């Protein structure tokens, strides 16, 4: 097991290095000279020369990358041009907000998607199966920013049940925090619920045809017991890993949701940074998201092996 984990971590390292190269090169795609932007309107030659030296722009590209990577490994993602604050500090401020949104969306998706998938598989070919499939496909097709706008229109503007925007920390006012995050979680979790439904259905259909399920039925067990203890438990394995992987997607999906509901999280930060041409923040967010994605994938792989006795036995 330890060897498997070590191997997986070792495979992740070159991927992380390549991600860092891509993120570094993003800045090089920038049209024009970023130093001229930093130098301000006066563009004093001495200031420009000093800034070039400070940002090591006179060094070869490979050296610039190595210096940048060294800073990143020490937790220094640069300074935000707009706020003058370290990017790491900004990300650490915003990340908990997005994590709260992602966790609530994940809970919503699991609560809706998994039971719907089980029901759809158990009642395959019936009206309920078609209905669940139609809803799932709709969930995958609806743009989440439109769903958000429609929910605001219905729930906040017309019914006045929930606030249309804003954020409150759960440590300050848990009820208000839940109220402000409920609609965004539904919006962000809808597509994930649809994906989970489809995968749960397909996984359940596979398991329901397995020999051990047939044996359980032949033993005369009640259908509910067969589904709950024999089929569902085994069908759950790929769903757990998928959920872990999809959690990374939620962090990205939060960009639009946070924009619509004016939630001061990670996603809103990248959009604001884009418009303020705060490239260090854009780079930082992409790097942190990608690293988080790789780490979550790694954990999902390990979790899959830990939960699957057959996989463990083959190691």
């Amino acid at each position, binding site marked *: 097991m330890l060897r498997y984990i070590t191997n997986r971590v070792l495979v992740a390292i*070159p*991927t*992380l290095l*390549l*991600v860092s*190269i*891509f993120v570094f090169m*993003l*800045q090089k*795609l*920038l*049209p024009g000279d970023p130093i001229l932007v930093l130098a301000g309107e006066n563009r004093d030659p001495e200031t420009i020369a000093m800034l070039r030296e400070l940002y090591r722009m006179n060094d070869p590209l490979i050296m610039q990358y190595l210096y940048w990577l060294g800073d990143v490994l020490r937790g220094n993602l640069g300074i935000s041009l707009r706020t003058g604050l370290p990017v790491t500090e900004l990300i650490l401020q915003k990340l908990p907000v997005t994590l709260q949104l992602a966790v609530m969306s994940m809970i919503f998706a699991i609560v809706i998607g998994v039971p719907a998938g089980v029901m759809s598989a158990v009642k395959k070919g019936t009206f309920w199966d078609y209905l669940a499939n139609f809803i799932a*496909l*709709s969930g*995958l*097709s*609806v*743009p989440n*920013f*439109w*769903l958000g*706008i*429609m929910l*605001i*229109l219905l729930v906040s*503007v017309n019914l006045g049940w929930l606030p249309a925007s804003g954020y409150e920390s759960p440590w300050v006012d848990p009820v208000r925090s839940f109220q402000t995050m409920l609609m965004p979680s539904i919006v962000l979790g809808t597509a994930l619920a649809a994906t989970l439904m489809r995968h749960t259905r397909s996984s359940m259909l596979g398991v329901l045809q397995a020999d051990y399920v047939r044996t359980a039925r032949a033993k005369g067990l009640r259908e509910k017991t067969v589904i709950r203890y024999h089929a569902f438990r085994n069908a759950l394995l790929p769903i757990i890993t998928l959920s872990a992987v999809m959690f*990374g*997607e939620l*962090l*990205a*999906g939060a*960009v*639009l949701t946070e*924009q*619509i509901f004016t939630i001061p999280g990670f996603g809103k930060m*990248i*959009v604001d940074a*884009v*418009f303020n041409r705060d*490239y260090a923040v*854009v*780079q930082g*967010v*992409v790097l942190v*998201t*990608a*690293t988080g*994605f*790789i780490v979550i*994938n790694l954990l999902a792989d390990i979790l899959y092996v830990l939960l699957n006795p057959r996989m463990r036995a083959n190691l």
Partner: protein
Amino acid sequence: MTDASLMPAAGATALAPRKPNRTWTKLKKNRSAMVGGVVVALFVLIALLAPLLPIPSPSATDWGKIRLAPSTEHWMGTDEIGRDILSRMIWGARASLMAGVISVMIAVMIGVPLGVLAGYFGGWTDQIIARATDALLAMPFLILAIALAAFLGPSLTNAMIAIGLSAVPIFIRLTRGQVLSVKTEDYVEGARAIGLGHLRIMSHYILPNVFPPILVQATLTIATAIIAEASLSFLGLGQQPPLPSWGSMLATARNFLSQAPWMALWPGAAIFMVVMGFNLLGDGLRDALDPKET
């Protein structure tokens, strides 16, 4: 064996009844795929015919008719500066469909050759391409598209490039996997045995046989790309005003939700329908091209 020997005997086509295409027959039987196909075809038709339709200019403003509710004169109402929403919707369909198709073409044109190279040659070529693909896949689609659009500058063209580049790894991985299973087939071995070059084997023997799953993925990715374009336009990184786009129309509509809710209704419904159409068509194509499905 010459090409001529592969040709059917003269008159054979006239005598033998033409064998119907199995994929098309299966696709025709799939009702939801057909619905999806019709929806997509309708949107494509509307987008193509936009210049010929008797509708006002999408940019024509009328300050006397701001935020009018849907009526017989303006079927979908008017926006905040009196522009006809139906007209903007029709012209917006052009931007969305064009973005969907062109960005997927970019992704296919870069991703498929790289995937073929990785799968066919294996070894270091495969290792380098596979690791780069892993790294690109680690960057979530929308974040990568936003970052690229930000660095390239806001415009529909750059949004299409950004979305296309973000979708490249999907096609590399898919093609590579397909090539790995096809390259050991007898007909590829046979082509190698008669001394054909790598380029000819890849283009004539491998590519046509890995094409079906790529077609399915392309159809489904068009749906994702349309949502991505709308998302980028919604954020102000895609089509720039006053040119119409469903995403930017939604962004504007957000500011007038209580006064003119119809402004938000139509663009979102259109994105939903066209994306649903592509998803249904893609799912149907997958079933029709799957030899295991009967």
